[in-house]
């Protein structure tokens, strides 16, 4: 069973925003909603690092835990999706998400929020695969077409990897071995780590999970 994950290599990201553009174009995302964005740390300072951020489809997703209407679900492939017909746009998920992934379109006057919108790992939502309803609500379902997320496939430097977690880990390991540095994976521990895992007696203390907004490498 595939476990879909994103991995961003901060050593390679050049802040071109190609992933952001690919996502916007692929899903016809409205103005003001950014399912993916590029964050640069220490911008303009030598050694600056950029990372592409979107929903990481966490193993133990905080958005799922706090949703008052339980509109989130996780597919068999590990993709965290939600039902927009059920979402009430309360914004709890936005506060819970360590990656700032949930987005809320301005649905009307007085700053009224619309239903939450977020990265779907290009897997659509709870509508018939590749139907018009699915496209309108959630965007294109590339996974059902046998393709990977547009942002990752479009990435020119292959900084952003998306797909089966084990395969990504192998690709990244080979990359780090070849270049000999930059082995830290931003957001990986936060999204997929298990900080609550019991410690083995006599074992070295486990490293603290990466801070959500902190710089790695």
């Amino acid at each position, binding site marked *: 069973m595939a476990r879909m994950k994103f991995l961003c290599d901060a050593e390679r990201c050049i802040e071109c925003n190609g992933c952001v553009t690919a996502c916007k174009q692929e899903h016809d995302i409205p103005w003001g909603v950014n399912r993916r964005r590029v964050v640069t740390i220490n911008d303009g300072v030598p050694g600056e690092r950029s990372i592409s951020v979107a929903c990481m489809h966490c193993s133990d997703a905080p958005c799922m835990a706090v949703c008052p209407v*339980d509109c989130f679900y996780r597919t068999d492939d590990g993709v965290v999706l*939600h039902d927009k*017909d059920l979402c009430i746009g309360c914004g709890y998920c936005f506060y819970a998400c360590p990656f700032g992934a949930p987005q809320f379109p301005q649905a009307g006057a007085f700053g009224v929020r619309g239903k939450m919108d977020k990265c779907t790992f290009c897997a659509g939502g709870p509508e*018939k695969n590749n139907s018009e309803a699915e496209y309108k609500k959630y965007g294109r379902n590339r996974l059902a077409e*046998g393709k990977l997320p547009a942002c990752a496939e479009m990435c020119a430097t292959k900084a952003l990897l998306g*797909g089966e977690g084990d*395969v*990504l880990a192998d*690709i990244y390991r*080979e990359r780090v071995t070849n270049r000999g540095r930059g082995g830290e994976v931003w957001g990986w521990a936060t999204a997929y780590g298990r900080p609550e895992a019991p410690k083995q007696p006599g074992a070295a203390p486990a490293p603290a999970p990466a801070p959500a907004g902190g710089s790695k490498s």
Partner: protein
Amino acid sequence: MMKRALLTFAGASLALAVGMGLAGCGERPQVIDYKQGKYQGKPDEAAYASAPWNGNKKDWELALANRNQNQNEYKRTR
């Protein structure tokens, strides 16, 4: 005789009207019954359920695995 039929008809009409009126006042639950921690939305079909995979999970996984390797330029350049 005629008067009795009229009264019966009027009574039946009244009963029908009252019944319909009461049905209109009935209160149905307008929201779903929330159960904490369980997905309450519509079921989603698997990515491989539709064409061109038509439920063939193996082929779908193979296609994704091949596509995944396109992200490995070390493999592409060798």
